[in-house]
């Protein structure tokens, strides 16, 4: 039988009931658990791993170009650096850049998209114009100038810059979606129930497209990680530390592929793919948890 019928339909009006029900389905959703499980594992590895490791991964070692072994789990680089240590520190940076950059971009995109889409008219025109202007700003050139004048090179500054420049497409997508939702009768009905603009957006429109919003965040997260790695490549990345992108670029620079040193580029590549891919799988699961129509198949 369908999963829904197993759920007792009692006290559905109470907000606690709604939460309990979401949790009920969340804990039974394989996609959600797998996706979040992998992301959480990698996150904990990045968060707690450094506590158990000596060094930061940038120190040169005496055993260069070693394949994976008990001593060096992921092998070593051309300079004898431990790839596993680099990977663990890289995960840290990647999560920071992804979450901060993606988070900042998602918040701006939602603000601009919701307000423009729901309000329409002149507000929409103005916000749309602003969005389009940011969209056509040559990100790389601006970053070069900022770097030259300010010389800010921390991971946080990089994430902030990525966040502030990567939101326009998401804002446009959210605006379009909001446009189509705001003419639905349930929005009118919410207004007839005395809801103001903020409430209509947060309680009616946003929940309706929650999986879409989470998807936007995941794409922005993945995008931030990739932009960060390409910035690292041209030497505009953080001057200290290591990221998964930086590892990939180093491997590329020192011809790891041609030298058959697969252990140098596979872990960071797989790491980025695993994070973004698992978030995507988790999103499909989340959609099933929050969209009652998808639960019954």
């Amino acid at each position, binding site marked *: 039988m369908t999963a829904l019928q197993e759920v007792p*339909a*009692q006290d*559905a*009006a*109470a907000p606690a009931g*709604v939460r309990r029900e979401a949790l009920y389905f969340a804990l039974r959703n394989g996609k959600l658990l797998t996706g979040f499980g992998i992301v959480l594992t990698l996150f904990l590895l990045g968060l707690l791993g450094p506590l158990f490791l000596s060094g930061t991964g940038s120190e040169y070692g005496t055993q260069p170009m070693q394949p994976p072994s008990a001593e060096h789990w992921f092998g070593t680089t051309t300079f004898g650096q431990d790839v596993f240590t680099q990977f663990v520190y890289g995960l840290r940076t990647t999560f920071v850049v992804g979450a901060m950059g993606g988070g900042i971009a998602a918040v701006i995109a939602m603000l601009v998209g919701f307000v423009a889409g729901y309000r329409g008219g002149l507000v929409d025109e103005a916000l749309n114009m602003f969005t389009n202007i940011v969209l056509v700003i040559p990100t790389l050139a601006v970053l070069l100038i900022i770097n030259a004048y300010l010389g800010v090179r921390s991971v946080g500054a990089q994430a902030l810059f990525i966040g502030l420049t990567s939101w326009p497409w998401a804002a446009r997508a959210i605006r379009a979606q909001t446009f189509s939702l705001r003419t*639905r*009768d*349930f929005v*009118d*009905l*919410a*207004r*007839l*129930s*005395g*809801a103001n603009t903020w409430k209509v957006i947060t309680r*009616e429109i946003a*929940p*309706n497209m*929650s999986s879409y919003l989470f998807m936007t965040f995941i794409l922005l997260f993945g995008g931030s990680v990739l932009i960060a790695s390409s910035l690292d490549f041209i030497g505009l990345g953080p001057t200290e530390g290591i990221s998964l992108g930086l590892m990939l670029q180093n491997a590329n620079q020192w011809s790891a592929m041609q030298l058959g040193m697969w252990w140098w580029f596979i872990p960071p590549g797989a790491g980025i793919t695993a994070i973004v891919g698992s978030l995507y799988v988790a999103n499909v699961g989340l959609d099933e948890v*929050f*969209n*009652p*129509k998808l639960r019954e198949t």
Partner: protein
Amino acid sequence: MLKLDNVTKVYKVGAFGGKVFAAVDGVSFDVQAGEVVSLIGESGSGKSTIGKMILGLASITGGSITVDGVPVKPGKDYYRHVQGVFQDPFSCYNPVFKADRVFQMIKDAYYPKLGDKEWDERVRSTIRDVRLDPDQVLGRYPHQLSGGQLQRLLIARALLLDLKLLVADEITSMLDASTRIDVLNLLAELKERGLGVLYVTHDLSLGNYLAERTVVLRRGTVVEMGATGKVFGDPLHPYTRQLLAAVPRLHAPWEDAAPTQTCHYHENAASGAMFEAEPGHLVACAQLDACPK
């Protein structure tokens, strides 16, 4: 109670909003307490726009709409007394939430201090009032309920408030024939309770079944209004006749109404925009758009 006075709604159309289109043009009528007034017109005649303006969901370009002398002011206080039910019950519910959330929203906004038990009792009794079994409809998602159930839940939602006026915008269009009669009988009961109902429809027979008075709308203007019996029994305006002739009848051949060329407006210019053929029965210029007004 509800009074529309020379209401207009103008949309800007064209590439740069250079042209204007009057969706509603100088409409005046009223709805008294304990009365059902049906607003009849074909699609695009502006009837839903009028409903939206009364509910404060669309702005009013000109004229005034008042309820008990108070102009339309979207907000909690206004919606306590004026509510609407819309055409499509399926799109009135946010599909990601359970259907009974519409009741919870009313509680949160208007009765935040009421105990959960007391409120639940009230919701259940209101649901029984609209002839539904609370156990069958509560705690379910919109897609698990039928159109008739959803529509009746929306009426129940409106009844939880201290209602004076209900705008029913094509509420039976999406329902099958038997449910339709149930919902109409429900509206008739509301009337008994002293509510004013504005019944917006394109269905003449349903309007005839329910309403004391009928307002016929054509391209944003009222062409004829009066007691339902008078308007349907003795239509004066050619457009009304045309509408009535367009209703298919068993055992009767199709027959176009002969257009009248007498223009009541010009015969009786002093009486204002509409000619009062008999007390309470008003009719507009018969020459329609060709009227040299």
